[in-house]
């Protein structure tokens, strides 16, 4: 922990220093494309470097590889004051450091309600019972004999952005939007398992339960279970990480992360929802009039600029600047992302690059030539249902400020003349 902080500070200091240096050296050096060029040439080029002369480490130094030591500050981080204890808490994906649409397994945010369960695959069972013809028990080996599929999905906690309802509060895209990740899952369509047990016609609901110390439970309507739910055992090609539900989790594509029950051990079929703790006292959205919405499953159309952002300031001065971010919708694909640099007076359509898959993250770019003036950056996503990402004030007008969940309002980043970025709200 201390090391990470040090690294981060060192790096920020270093980048701030080189930025100042570049500024002092004036426009010429910046125009030449380097902040450290000298008459004698860049010593990194003119002098032979250690890594060029001496042998590096051989294979097998790390049988399971790790990121470069220079990436040590690219880690999940938590907000200690948010929750009572780390065993029932959350941390955040460092979105500002990532690119593309796939989240590396070790950086996928964690949310546990009773700590990470440790379960040997040989000891894991999945039971299907209730309104079925035959109640069944599967071992992990059984599950791996069903036909399996690979699908890319985002998983977003319903509380992502929940701390921002009353105004901009956390200064970092990691903290304002980092309760999300996107990986490729390998698993068995839930439909196959339900068909194997034979769901009775009266079976309209499904209760999914985890094997962890919180015995997490959520009610899921049968149409969704039969549509695109997946019982997954791999993420990004390797076994699920323990903190993501090893050896088995449920994927409920496009719906709030709490329903993606980890350490999945039981599926009960019934004729009505169960009104469990996580669908009554939590994950219900309190409105300004005292009413509360329940079963707010779908994650709304949403986007955020990941760089520049408060943890990823502009350090290179004026000139070409890559503005990039993520967009997603629980309803399908993203058809368009617009970006503004003046706080929403004028918008330009950004370029979506990479795969455009339903209920997955989309990566967008807007390449601009920065003149060094202040920017108010925002992004606005539109999904294939035609739903447009609302402003934070539109959401507040409709819901008040006590909803906690489902805050998909447009985020504003202020970039000052020095490239420093801050989380702000605008008129």
């Amino acid at each position, binding site marked *: 922990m201390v090391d990470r902080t040090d690294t981060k500070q060192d790096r920020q200091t270093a980048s701030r220093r080189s930025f100042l240096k570049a500024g002092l050296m004036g426009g010429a050096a910046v125009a030449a494309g380097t902040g450290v060029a000298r008459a004698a040439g860049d010593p990194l080029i003119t002098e032979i470097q250690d890594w060029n002369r001496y042998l590096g480490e051989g294979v097998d130094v790390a049988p399971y590889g790790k990121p470069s030591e220079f990436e040590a500050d690219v880690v999940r981080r938590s907000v200690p004051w948010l929750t009572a204890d780390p*065993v029932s808490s959350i941390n955040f994906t460092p979105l500002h450091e990532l690119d593309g649409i796939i989240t590396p397994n070790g950086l996928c945010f964690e949310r546990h309600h009773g700590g990470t369960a440790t379960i040997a695959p040989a000891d894991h069972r999945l039971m299907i019972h209730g309104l079925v013809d035959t109640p069944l028990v599967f071992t992990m080996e059984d599950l791996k004999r069903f036909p399996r599929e690979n699908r890319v999905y985002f998983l977003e906690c319903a509380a992502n952005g929940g701390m921002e309802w009353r105004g901009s*509060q956390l200064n970092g895209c990691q903290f304002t939007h980092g309760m999300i990740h996107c990986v490729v899952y390998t698993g068995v369509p839930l439909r196959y398992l339900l068909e194997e047990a034979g769901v009775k016609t009266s079976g309209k609901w499904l209760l999914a339960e985890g094997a962890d110390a*919180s015995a997490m439970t959520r009610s899921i309507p049968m149409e969704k279970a039969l549509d695109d739910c997946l019982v997954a055992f791999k993420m990004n090609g390797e076994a699920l990480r323990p903190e993501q539900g090893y050896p088995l989790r449920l994927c409920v594509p496009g719906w709030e992360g709490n329903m993606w029950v980890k350490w999945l051990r039981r599926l009960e079929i019934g004729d009505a929802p169960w009104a469990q703790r996580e669908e009554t006292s939590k994950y219900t959205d309190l409105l300004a009039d005292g009413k509360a919405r329940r079963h707010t499953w779908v994650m709304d159309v949403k986007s955020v600029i990941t760089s520049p952002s408060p943890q990823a300031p502009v350090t290179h001065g004026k000139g070409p600047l890559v503005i990039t971010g993520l967009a997603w919708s629980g309803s399908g694909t993203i058809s368009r992302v617009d970006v503004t640099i003046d706080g929403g007076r004028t918008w330009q359509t950004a370029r979506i690059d990479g795969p455009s898959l339903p209920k997955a993250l989309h990566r967008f770019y807007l390449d601009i030539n920065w003149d060094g003036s202040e920017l108010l950056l925002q992004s606005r996503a539109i999904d294939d249902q035609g739903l447009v990402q609302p402003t934070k004030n539109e959401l507040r007008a409709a819901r008040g400020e006590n909803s906690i969940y489902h805050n998909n309002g447009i985020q504003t980043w202020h970039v000052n003349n020095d490239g420093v970025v801050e989380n702000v709200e605008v008129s």
Partner: protein
Amino acid sequence: MLKFPKSAALAVLAMTAFAGPSLADGDVAAGKKVFKKCAACHAVGDGAKHKVGPELNDVFGRTAGGAEGYKYSKAMIAAGEEGLVWDADSLTEYLTKPKAMIKGTKMAFAGLKKDKDIVNILAYLESFSTAQAAAVEPAPETAKEAEPVETAAAAPAAEEPAPEMAMAVEASQGAYGLGRKAMPDEVEAWDIDIRPDGTGLPDGKGTVAQGDPIYAENCAVCHGDFGEGAGRWPVLAGGQGTLLKERPVKTIGSYWPYLSTVFDYVRRAMPFGNARSLSDDDVYALTAYMMYLNDIVEDEEFELSKENFTEMRLPNEANFMADDRLSEPHYAKGGEPCMTDCKPGPVQITARAQVIDVTPDGEGDENSGGGID
């Protein structure tokens, strides 16, 4: 009878005479698993800090009540002053039934029922202690012999497949013929969910008065004596009339729609870190006590049972509604969003995160602008 061994020599004697399994039999890995029951309140290992309970590094050899900076019960401090030092023997007694040994201890934990769990957890805790070794280390010859044997025995044990089930297994009749039929006892063991209509309620009953001591022993450490919540742990009672306010207090009485959720959740996940340890009657009594703390019943003799459960109603039930987000104006208006001249003049900043300053790594970590839980 000497209550607490007063010296290492006595501790050795006590250990030798101790009839139960000795520390040498403990399995650190198994102890680590058992420790999960403790981890909600205790930390151990690198950088461990006091939580609800004191950190447990070097607990062997520590005088009772002696961890610096932790606020102990008077009873624990007194025990230390009387000469209680934690070693295998005293910890065994304490972990078997904490309140029997130290009357008045703050530790809400009821105790470990299995001797094996205690031996294993002591082995685990010992691995974080330096002072202990001399007192209860097994005789050297055992250690010598054990070394090669242990290595040989440990590896296959870990990979040993689950024992064959000594019962008739009926294959799935589905299209793939995968899996096997679940047995009624298996379904019963896992099917513990309760619905608002009472489906799933077990036989049983309990009164408010019976729930009071169960709550005090198992729940108050986190939820407060009156359900007011300790630290950031959930508030269970009060909050009526706050749902329209700036900081609503969402409790069983002020917010939760169904009483069945209380029973279901307590039975499946509470006490936190020792789930499934309460009897059904205990859960009925605790649920009744929750109603009492929330002024839903006022009679301490009120008894909640399977029979009268579904007659109970929580005050906020009618205020839950279906998801109608798509009818909100910003979604309902539809159409193409504005691209140019969308705001009348230059845009002003109206709020800044740096003013709030609650971002981690900043200087204002202590402040809270509201939570997610």
